[in-house]
């Protein structure tokens, strides 16, 4: 479990995050949603330590990450996997070397064991046989899957996904969503997904946190979001006529 306690962050005296408290539960897909510029990416970066919060604490299974030394943080980071918006695969390395990279850095494995782990991870994301290809030679969707394979290479306890569906066609986006949810359940990890893709909200939103103007504005799940009266949330999630119709029909049936 990851717990955020009173997280605040400002840039040049402009408050980006205001006193945010969230608990991300283990074995669940936790979604952070919000409009562009609402502060959700900054919140995620504060959670993983890429940005230091001005106030508050981040607890990984009860251990205060914000109070840790650099070396102590390294130990926690070995248990974190992260899928970045653009994949963030290393351009100069092949797919296989990208997945081996965290293993070489942190695992005491033989070359054979690493090879087996790479093949397992690639098989898990349905990307077998592309070991020798370079990031520039594969599509955006494939890069995302390889990014997930790299993120799970070290058997992480925590998985962060920053806008995993951006730039993908709807079919591939659903595949990525399902893959994230399957991996979360299979490995019983704490998964945090930053998104503003409403299909993802409805598909995998077991725990949803809505960030509005740097504050936690609403918390619930994909079922309670349909009946929520929160105006700002409704404006974001049910912005299109289609989503409004879906909401109406679902609430009418229930």
């Amino acid at each position, binding site marked *: 479990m990851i717990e955020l306690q009173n997280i605040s962050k400002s840039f040049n005296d402009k408050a980006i995050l205001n006193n945010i408290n969230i608990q991300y539960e283990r074995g669940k897909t936790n979604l952070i949603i919000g409009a562009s510029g609402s502060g959700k990416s900054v919140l995620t970066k504060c959670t*993983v330590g890429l940005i230091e919060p001005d106030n508050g604490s981040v607890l990984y299974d009860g251990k205060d990450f914000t109070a840790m030394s650099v070396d102590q943080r390294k130990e926690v*980071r*070995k248990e974190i996997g992260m899928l*970045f918006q653009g994949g963030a695969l290393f*351009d100069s390395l092949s797919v296989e070397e990208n997945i081996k*990279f965290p293993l070489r*850095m*942190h695992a005491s494995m033989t070359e054979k064991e690493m090879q087996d782990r790479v093949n397992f991870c690639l098989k898990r994301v349905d990307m077998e046989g592309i070991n020798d290809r370079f990031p520039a030679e594969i599509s955006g969707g494939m890069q995302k899957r390889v990014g997930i394979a790299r993120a799970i290479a070290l058997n992480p306890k925590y998985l962060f996904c920053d806008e995993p569906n951006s730039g993908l066609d709807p079919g591939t986006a659903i595949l990525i969503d399902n893959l994230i949810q399957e991996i979360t359940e299979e490995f019983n990890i704490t998964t945090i997904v930053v998104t503003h893709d409403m299909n993802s909200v409805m598909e995998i939103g077991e725990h949803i946190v809505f960030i509005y103007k740097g504050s936690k504005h609403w918390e619930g799940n994909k079922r309670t979001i349909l009946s929520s009266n929160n105006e700002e949330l409704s404006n974001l999630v049910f912005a299109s006529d289609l989503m409004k119709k879906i909401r109406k029909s679902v609430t009418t049936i229930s």
Partner: protein
Amino acid sequence: MGFLHSIGEYFILMGRTFQKPSKASLYRKQIVYEIDSLGIGSFGIITIISAFMGAVITIQTASNIDSALIPEYTVGFTARQSMILEFSTTIIALILAGKVGSNIASEIGTMRVSEQIDALEIMGINSASYLIVPKIIAAVFINPFLVIWSMFIGIFGGYAVAYFSDAVSTEAYLYGIQYDFKEFSIYYALIKTVFFAFIITSIPSYYGYYVKGGALEVGAASTKGVVTSSIVILIVNYVLTQILLI
């Protein structure tokens, strides 16, 4: 204030860069890669530029000596001194600042904007050390070889002028390049090269590492890296010359 902020930020980055490496074996592989990328890949351009500069210095010196009191071997002597003391060190360093510096700034800058540096940090890796140390070590190791090669090719370029034209006789040129030779000139050149190699790699790395934005900002960082490292090379050249030769 921006200037002082940049200097402070640069030294903080260098402090992070020279912390204990995460895994030394991975650095060795990177250093070999950088020696090939930054050093071996520059041999061609250095050969061409040095040969022509040596030739031009020889022609210029020969054509400007009017007095019969100045011996003919002065041409060879001047070509040797120019190549060893300034051209093969400072001018080659400026050329490498353009070629290698822009390459480094754009490579690290692209890694920054495409979140590859964040990915390294998330994996618990000191990204500054992993990305910058191999480049600095590679340049400090390979650049002295490039400079010695440049000296040799430049002096040979002057000899080619003597051989193929009647600007100066080959005997006088060969005598001139050996006349009053001081070993310290070579040490002086190599000391400067080590400083320049550090500047050529560390300053563009700094500009690339802290880039914010997209492709446009990466291009701007690359330009800043080249311009700043060129200016710093000239300043350090003056200071080292003052310290070592006077």
